[in-house]
């Protein structure tokens, strides 16, 4: 009864939502090495990949462990496909093996005393369909070994495998357990870029065969942009913003969110003029007036933070164009995205090597901010 009541109560608005709906708190007491930690998570992870993004120590792994059932939250609820996994008020706490949350650990945690085939068999034996015949199960394992190119390695122990082979074995193993939710804790940490790439491709092809939401932890923004359909930003145990990737990127909810993503030019600004007719505004930024979008709900003289995606800003070769700021360059370095520039006021930009050649003589840059790319954060 308690289960039904709380399910109805909690999922009123999300009755048809598949995926994870979680709302829980957990306090870790202080230890000798660390102060107490409060985790307060409100998270929805619908179908597709949800990336938990945030700095180290923001509570990402603890969140994942609560979802998997390894750590018991102090209060709140966790639902997966409208099925209650945890409900403090209703005293429901499904043990991990009944939650069917496949978990991929940083080092993959392949059982060292078993061969690859035994690892896979262990997972296949754990699936809930007891009607499956031994033959059917063997065939399922053989198929998985084939499709992950592990057939020749079936009798090897994990210690004998290369990094890439271990990744494949871990993914094959987790797929055989037929999870309803896949959790990945920084699966590419410590891997070189080639192995990272192969893991991403593998994961994306895996998702095709796995009809389940994926929650992945990373603190690499490129990994986040590549894999995420949804984003959940965590900082110091709190969720800063949770939603579809494109909407979070388009409109970070707060300055904190924008800072945490590290993708934006953030500058203090003051509203000089508002024109509801033409739906434009005039903003004072770094002693320059520039055009912005209309800002409903704001008044003349309001001081806020101007926010522009770094990739939307254009570095100009000449002084002529309107809507541009002048910024002094403090440093530059080569990166995989071209040349990264660090400018005054904590502004970071990426330019192509050709652009950099054109402007590198000057120590000041003209940076054009397209009016429709500007948003305004309180």
């Amino acid at each position, binding site marked *: 009864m308690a289960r039904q009541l709380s399910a109805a109560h909690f999922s009123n608005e999300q009755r048809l939502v598949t995926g994870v709906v979680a709302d829980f708190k957990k306090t870790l007491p202080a230890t000798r090495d660390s102060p107490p930690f409060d985790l307060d998570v409100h998270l929805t992870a619908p179908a597709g990949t949800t990336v938990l993004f945030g700095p180290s120590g923001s509570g990402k792994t603890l969140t994942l462990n609560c979802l*998997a059932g390894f750590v018991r939250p102090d209060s709140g609820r966790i639902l997966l496909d409208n099925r209650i996994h945890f409900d403090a008020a209703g005293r429901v706490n499904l043990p991990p093996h009944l939650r069917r949350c496949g978990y991929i650990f940083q080092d993959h945690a392949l059982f060292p005393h078993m061969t690859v085939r035994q690892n896979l068999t262990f*997972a296949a034996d754990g699936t809930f369909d007891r009607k499956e015949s031994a033959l059917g199960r063997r065939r399922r394992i053989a198929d998985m070994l084939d499709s992950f190119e592990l057939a020749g390695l079936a009798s090897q122990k994990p210690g004998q495998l290369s990094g890439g082979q271990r990744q494949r074995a871990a993914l094959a193993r987790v797929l055989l357990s037929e999870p309803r939710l896949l959790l990945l804790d920084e699966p590419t940490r410590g891997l070189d870029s080639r192995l990272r790439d192969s893991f991403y491709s593998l994961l994306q092809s895996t998702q095709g065969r796995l009809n389940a939401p994926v929650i992945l932890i990373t603190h690499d923004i490129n990994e986040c942009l590549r894999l995420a359909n949804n984003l959940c930003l965590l900082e110091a145990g709190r969720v800063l913003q949770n939603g579809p990737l494109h909407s979070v990127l388009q409109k970070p909810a707060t300055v904190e969110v924008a800072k945490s993503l590290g993708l934006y030019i953030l500058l203090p600004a003051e509203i000089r003029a508002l024109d509801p007719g033409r739906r434009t505004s005039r903003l004072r930024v770094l002693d320059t007036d520039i055009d912005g979008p209309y800002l409903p709900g704001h008044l003349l003289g309001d001081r806020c933070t101007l926010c522009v995606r770094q990739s939307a800003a254009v570095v100009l070769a000449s002084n002529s164009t309107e809507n541009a700021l002048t910024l002094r360059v403090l440093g530059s370095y080569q990166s995989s995205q071209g040349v990264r520039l660090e400018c005054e006021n904590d502004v970071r930009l990426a330019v192509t090597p050709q652009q950099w050649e054109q402007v590198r003589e000057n120590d000041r840059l003209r940076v054009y901010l397209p009016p429709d790319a500007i948003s305004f954060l309180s």
Partner: protein
Amino acid sequence: MGRTLESIDWFPLFLSLKVAALSTMFILVIGTGLAYLLSHREFRGKSLLDSAITLPLVLPPTVLGYYLLVVVGRETGLGRLYEWLFGTPLVFTWQAAVVAAIVHSAPIYIKGARVLLENVDYRYEWAARSLGASEWRTFWRITLPLARRGLSALGSLSFARALGDFGITIMVAGNFPGRTQTVSVAIYEAVESGDGRLARILVLVVSAVALAFLWPGSYLQRTSRMSSGS
């Protein structure tokens, strides 16, 4: 006093081996279970249980023997239960020597096994749970195999220790030649009665047997360390 090897009564040695084997089997089952509880569960009275398990290591054997007499004597509930089940009293039988050996060597096994089980990487256990394995299946298929080498070494240590109990055994099983006289008691009696040759032979044989059981254990530990270090 010239004894030939044929004239030596080997019963105490065989009894000791039997007692040590049986007590080790008990310890492996109950001790591993207790060690798992202590290493993987939080419950009230855990530290009290841990201290109680350590107690036999520090108390004099005579005190432990006295306690055992109080607990399993003919007048106590446990003693009566045993007598009702098996038709004979427990005290002053070779079975009492098994109980004595368990009390003597279980603490070392349990304390060591707890550390070993705690040191099994929890991520393997969590991975198993997330793959649908119950706690019981995880214990049998993951935790236990990963701690196997260490537990085997501890098992041979507790066998060797059980072989050598004297104080508790003589308190609860007594010294009845041919019935409850274990090898350590036999050595004591040989020395007391001035049979130095018998004492020397038994001492050497016991030492050799104990060494034979300890050596593979420490070899196992050494290789497990080498393989985990690679």
